[in-house]
């Protein structure tokens, strides 16, 4: 896998007096085969960074390099993204198999496509015979698995996961997080994992960055950020996490 390096990324929305700087000189590195967790409140610019990293919004300044090279602008993209709302991220008029097929590299032959889709569905613990199902027939958790399978189909160098469990019920969230962790280790994915939930980020990420009003306030190994936070805002965030539910072992 490959390292994704974001340097001094600035993204502005709007023009004239109503211009809004969503990302302000953001520098981040997703190390090869590791997970970088990005935390922050809504509107802090996390999704902007995610979309810029995937090449969906263009940067006003700064560079994004994948293994030292700029992101390609056409063809199947090496940085793929999983979105928050699985209902919105799959075309309701396409079967889940078709949606996954759309992301397969063109080298696959017709028959190879079929077996590849089966393999991918199996990988995310979905029954391959359901490839003809349409999104409205599936639950939110299942759809998020399809979205993950689609991303894996593209053989991405880096995967960006933007709040992928916030639209799910807690009972389903665990299964999706387990799957993400499992795939990350198995396939050695480089993962940019975004969430407003610190406990969730802590569970999947080895590196953590904290973002607020478009800026990175603090970044480092997860252990360090969570146990020896440097920035007062990080402490504030940690304070706001509800106490543990389970009795500590």
């Amino acid at each position: 896998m490959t390292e994704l390096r974001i340097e001094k990324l600035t993204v502005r929305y709007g023009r004239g007096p109503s211009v809004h700087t969503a990302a302000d000189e953001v520098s981040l590195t997703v190390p090869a085969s590791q997970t970088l967790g990005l935390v922050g409140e809504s509107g802090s610019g996390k999704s902007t960074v995610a979309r810029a990293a995937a090449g969906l919004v263009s940067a006003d300044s700064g560079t994004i390099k994948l293994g030292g090279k700029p992101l390609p602008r056409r063809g199947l993209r090496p940085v793929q993204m999983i979105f928050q709302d699985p209902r919105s991220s799959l075309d309701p008029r396409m079967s889940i198999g078709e949606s996954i097929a759309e992301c397969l590299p063109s080298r696959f032959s017709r028959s190879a496509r079929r077996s590849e889709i089966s393999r991918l569905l199996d990988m995310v613990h979905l029954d391959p015979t359901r490839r003809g199902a349409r999104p409205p027939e599936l639950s939110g958790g299942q759809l998020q698995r399809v979205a993950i399978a689609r991303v894996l189909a593209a053989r991405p160098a880096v995967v960006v996961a933007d709040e992928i469990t916030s639209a799910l019920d807690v009972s389903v969230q665990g299964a999706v997080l387990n799957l993400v962790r499992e795939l990350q280790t198995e396939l050695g994915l480089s993962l940019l994992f975004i969430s407003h939930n610190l406990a969730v980020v802590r569970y999947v990420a080895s590196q953590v960055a904290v973002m607020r009003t478009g800026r990175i306030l603090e970044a480092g190994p997860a252990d360090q950020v969570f146990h020896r936070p440097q920035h007062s805002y990080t402490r504030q965030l940690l304070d706001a996490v509800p106490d543990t539910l389970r009795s500590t072992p």
Partner: protein
Amino acid sequence: MRLLTVLRTPMGVVASIILVLVLLTAIVAPLLWNDAAEARNTANLNSGPSAEHPLGTDVLGRDLLLRTLVATRLTVLLALGATGVALGLGILFGAAPVLLGHRAGRLAVSAVNIAVAFPGLLLALVLALILGVGELSAMWAIGIAGAPSFARLCQTLVASVAERDYIAAARLAGKSRFRILLRHVLPNIAEPLIVNATIAAGAALLAFAGLSFLGLGVQSPSYDWGRMMMEGLDRIYLNPIAALAPGVAVVIAGLAFNLMGEALARSLSTPRIPVAWGMRPRRPYPQKAEERGDGEPADHLAGPGHADSSEPAGPAAYPEAVLTLRDLRVSLPGHLGCLTPVRGISLRIAPGEAVGIVGESGSGKSLTALAAAQLVEEPLAVRAATLKFCGADLMLRPQSTRDRSRYQRLLGRSLAVVFQDPMTSFNPTMRIGAQLVEGMRFHDGVERSWAQARAVDRLGAVGIEEPERRAAMYPHEFSGGMRQRAMIAMGLMGDPQLIIADEPTTALDVTVQKQVLELLDEVRSASSVALMLISHDIAVVRQVCDRIAVMYGGRIVEELPADRLAEQAQHPYTRALIAAVPDMNTDLDEPLATIPGRPVDLSQRSAGCPFAPRCPLATQRCHEQDPALIPAGDSGGAHRVACWHPVVDAGRAALAEADRSAGEPASAEGSELS
């Protein structure tokens, strides 16, 4: 095809029949009667209705009935042609933002915005002057005149689809813009486009009739209905039918299209734009109809569920609870039977007590809260053995208007409700201050200045700075957290005994969530107001509440003091819920515990414990009999659980946990598919 479902509605059937008749006439009439319609009966000029000529004859003695029928083809063709022009141009401009990218797209949007303001008639007049009068120039004129509103419609529809994530995903898959338009955008906006094109065809028909009527459309010797009306108008004193008959034809054909559009829109529930040539959808097109279970006969669901008439738990020490619910049910009558999303809730809240309700979405938390607050609306129906608030029995229908207003006043003053989404829960067109004082002025008729002063005071009390200035502001000028504070302040205007807060922090950020929870806690202890806090997040509820009720499938499955939650929860669902939420101490080397299967589907409930299909401890009995909510062994009534096999001793608990993680992770949720 979904469009054909229209044939199942009476309006759709009527519209289809008329439409088919009109189209048949358009095809057949000119073949049969073209020559007869031209035949002149010089003995019979300008005559009224007679046996030979049912509608009379025109200036040259031609039969009006035949001419009306033959004119159908030209009239309909021209209308369809104009619609085609409008639709084509509209899609072209409407899709520009997708095809050309942002900047060019914005230009197209502005152009359409300006064009849409011009009345189409002007364009028709101008074109008539430039191209000369005639049917083709009229067709282009009406088509072009209709294009801006179609473009606007397309733009809005396209924009609502374009911001969907599957478009972004297709871009990441390297698909070209054109392909995305064809594969993803157009199929998803086709239905509303078809509906509106149908309505537009009707409008074009009317517009064409108007132009021809003025003499600016079809020119002699061709004739359409509009032209025939113009010719008939001159002789309205002699034979009013001559002018009215083609008019009736216009109405019938126009109706065929308009009714069809209306019926289509109803059966597809598409936003439609009834303005003739000014179409603009109200809101983004809803992606897909609700995928609620297709409603099997569900009579049994309304059944007794469980006769749970045991007294609600909770400190029995207090004489009078603020809120008492006994066997509360909320049901949704439908033509296929009755769904019962809330099936027998019993709960008691003491003065000053904070009770939390947790459960997954769809478990019936919100409906319970709304029912308790008397805010459930038709078609949902509330029943309860007891529903008492501050001593008043709310299940009694108030007899007199005085009783009624006394109830309303009690609820208005003493029951505060805080809703989930602070963005949408305030009236956007009213100042915050005015919204705060409204209830008090309505119920108590206090003076405006006094009420205003109290509002400012309350805003200050919930920690809003510069309350005076803030009271004069509109909701959109507040941040989310501040709005939720203002909502709480609104509840504190009267003399609250109970605050019902339904997911009050779900839409807020963690740091703000903490502040709002602290505020609720403060309010409660400062003025000993009782609190009913609803959340899907068990950690949030535990932070604030004394007692917690866990809901599943429309019932309380466990109710226990908050301090027993971590160690002594006995219901397998409660334990699974606790285990499934990662927190800052979760073991990173283990997979998270999960709950297999999917949440209950109301339309597919069967007898037995609602959790049985997902429960690792389920036995035959669980599938057959629904367990009652009964006091748990050692708690003295404060802890109740509805389970045949409560997890009591530590050994069983450990076993259950081990069981759950062993099956992990592969089979976890995936098994539901096979």
